[in-house]
């Protein structure tokens, strides 16, 4: 399935990209699985998305927990904890 992935703030800078369309292999069907899938690219990806890093996610512009399911066409964003206000 194909999804759109977005990155913001420090994550965007570490990865050197604000996002991409990505074709996912079968079995990558949750936010956590997508994060691990991207981290396996190694280098900056592994560093920025490692499990110990405090990374938040949103699915279709709604805050999402790691176990949340993702579907074809979804927009999934990864970012550090927010610091507005």
């Amino acid at each position, binding site marked *: 399935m194909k999804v759109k992935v*977005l990155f*913001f*703030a*420090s994550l965007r800078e570490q990865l050197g990209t604000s996002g991409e369309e990505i074709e996912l292999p079968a079995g990558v069907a949750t936010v956590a699985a997508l994060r691990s899938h991207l981290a396996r690219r190694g280098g900056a990806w592994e560093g920025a998305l490692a499990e110990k890093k*405090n990374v938040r996610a*949103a699915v279709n*512009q*709604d*805050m999402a927990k790691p176990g949340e399911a993702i579907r074809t066409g979804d927009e999934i*964003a990864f*970012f*550090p*904890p*927010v*610091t*507005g*206000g």
Partner: protein
Amino acid sequence: MKISVQREDFDLSLETKLLSKSDGVGAVASFVGVVRDVRMTLEHYPGMTESALTKIAEEAATRWKVLDCTVIHRYGDLAPHDQIVLVAVASAHRGDAFAACEFIMDYLKTQAPFWKKEHRPEGAAWVEARASDDEAAGRWEPPARKAS
């Protein structure tokens, strides 16, 4: 309800004057966040930001008697003393207005997708989220879960 995510500055007296025209209004409580002592750039997630702020304001209106409210949050480059955020709530009585205003601000700090990057003489750095902000939001009962 007015929700705006914008580069431009805002006018507190204009916004509260608009809210004070609400039918049955007896109180308008407002909060303005100001840049403390360092230049910064505020990044946000266009689309999600507006919907997150709308949800927070709607949640406040389910908890207190809110007649109307305004949330304005700026993004882009800001300098010390610049205004960053405005939350203003109109109610019949001050208790509802004060509480809803504080609730919206506390939730905004942990739920609205904004990120601050500070520009200090020694270099630029992203601001780290503070545990005290999570604690402030946690003081309120959790939001009612939407039936799905």
